[in-house]
């Protein structure tokens, strides 16, 4: 069950491919076309920044890449496998085993401590308790100072919560890290620390990173910048 249909043999095909992906919110006159046909290819080991004005569809696209949402039309191939043809549970396993996601709104569990939040993905992976604790502590230390591991999200600042969310996304050593405005709540010093951490993940562990950001400074860390405008990709650079 834990081994997913994504097979190793087709690993030379691009890691992520979007073909004519659209997304519509609402119906009829109130329909909101958030994505109007996205074609995108991201290879294994790339570090991609996604930019664009507010409301241009960046988060919508990230949710689809993260298998959290399904496109209205078009195809999403992950390692050559059509995600649209996978079952609910298979998509869940894809998220569990390959993806790490940092949400724009963090989405931490409010009643559990920072450490337990970071441990959560490992619980579903079936990692033994001792190893789980060790890895969660390491991930937390990587993103920030020790000391808040037993705090609940309500007892942490926005920036601290954001770093816990990052720790939760990287604790599993995912193939792909999808980060939606992960430095939005951090001051520039902390942002730079986080970006350096991501860069090291990207270069040392060859984790593929797709990161939404509004700040050109942050985007500069990426190898490629994709710009969204009104639900389509306006330009690519790098």
């Amino acid at each position: 069950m834990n081994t997913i249909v994504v097979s190793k043999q087709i690993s030379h095909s691009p890691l992520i491919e979007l073909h004519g992906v659209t997304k519509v919110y609402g119906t009829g006159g109130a329909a909101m076309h958030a994505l109007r046909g996205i074609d995108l290819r991201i290879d294994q080991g790339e570090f991609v920044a996604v930019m664009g004005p507010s409301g241009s569809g960046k988060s919508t696209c990230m949710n689809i890449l993260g298998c959290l949402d399904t496109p209205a039309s078009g195809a999403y191939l992950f390692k050559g496998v059509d995600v649209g043809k996978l079952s609910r549970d298979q998509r869940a396993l894809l998220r569990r085993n390959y993806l790490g996601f940092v949400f724009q709104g963090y989405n931490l569990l409010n009643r559990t401590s920072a450490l337990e939040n970071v441990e959560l993905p490992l619980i579903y992976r079936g990692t033994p308790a001792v190893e789980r604790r060790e890895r969660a502590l390491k991930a937390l230390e990587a993103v920030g100072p020790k000391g808040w591991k037993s705090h609940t999200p309500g007892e942490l600042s926005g920036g601290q919560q954001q770093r816990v969310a990052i720790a939760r996304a990287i604790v599993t050593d995912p193939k792909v890290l999808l980060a939606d405005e992960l430095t939005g709540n951090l001051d520039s010093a902390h942002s730079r620390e986080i970006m350096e951490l991501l860069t090291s993940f990207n270069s040392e562990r060859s984790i593929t990173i797709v990161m939404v950001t509004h700040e050109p400074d942050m985007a500069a860390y990426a190898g490629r910048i994709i710009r969204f405008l009104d639900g389509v990709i306006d330009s690519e650079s790098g």
Partner: protein
Amino acid sequence: MVTLGGGATVQVSEQIASLGSNLLMITPGQRIGMGQRSAAVAFDVDDAEAIARDIGSISAVAPSSSQGVTVVFGNKNWSTKVTGIDGQYFKVRNWTIESGREFVSSELRAGKAVCILGATVRKELFGGQDPLGSNIRMEKVSCQVIGILEAKGQSTMGTDRDDLILIPLRTFQRRIAGNQDIGLIQVSVQDGVSTDKVKQDIEQLMRVRRHISPSEDDSFSVRDMKEIAKMLTGTTQVLTALLGAVAAVSLLVGGIGIMNIMLVSVTERTREIGVRLAIGALTREVLMQFLVEAIVLSSFGGLFGIVLALTASVGLARVLQVPFVFNSGIVVIAFFFSAAVGVIFGYFPARQAARMDPIEALRHE
């Protein structure tokens, strides 16, 4: 509450049974109000003999008379009630002797100074000592203890049924009351015979014996314990039903409370479900977690409630002096009700949430 009501019903029926259920009580005078009765000539021994002789279908007749006395033993004294008895008093009242013996007929006939003590009197006068063979004094009479009655405990009305002394009727009349009056004749009707018929026969006989003209009212009353029993158990059954209804309403209100809490917690937790799905939890893993939580929560709630309720019932039963009767049916119903409400309103909304796309569940407000 149902437990308490059930306890009261059982208690009343038991007490009636301990009185003897086919019992008719004949007293002089008529009840003219709560605890008041019209003055009337008392019965005498002949009346009791006439009933025993002339009325068919009766199994026992027991004339008796009572009076309050102070009894003395050594340096202890105790105010109680002494009852002079004759005939088959033990039989009609369902009394049994715990130790010692009943009166023998020679003692009854001769009016010997012997007595049988109720458990309370025995305790007050003798403590742990064995009273058999000792002499106690009541009024001017010195009386030898020959027996102890088995304890009956308190009555529904809260009176101590063991606070009495029995002596032969003749002894009572001669040496304590100083007259030949009889205050009460109790009659046991044979099993399977209509007590109404016997009651009518007795009424007729007594009217004749007391020379009551047809235009006059009875100067005595014959009460059927069965009627009283029915009335009393009826009352307590109504009480049980009423308490049951109150309990049902509180159960319903409690159920709505649980439902609300569960619904609120599920709405709150829809986002949590979204988070778990987003990081790779399978629908069934999330569902299992919520199902287990709902079961554990509502079972603990149910158990806690039941323990609380039973404790309160035992306490209340003690205060109200009704026996505690454990009604397992009610407990099971209460438990399953709370468990069902918890699981239904905890699990099903969670299932709804776990079937959404993760992003939908995450956006849930």
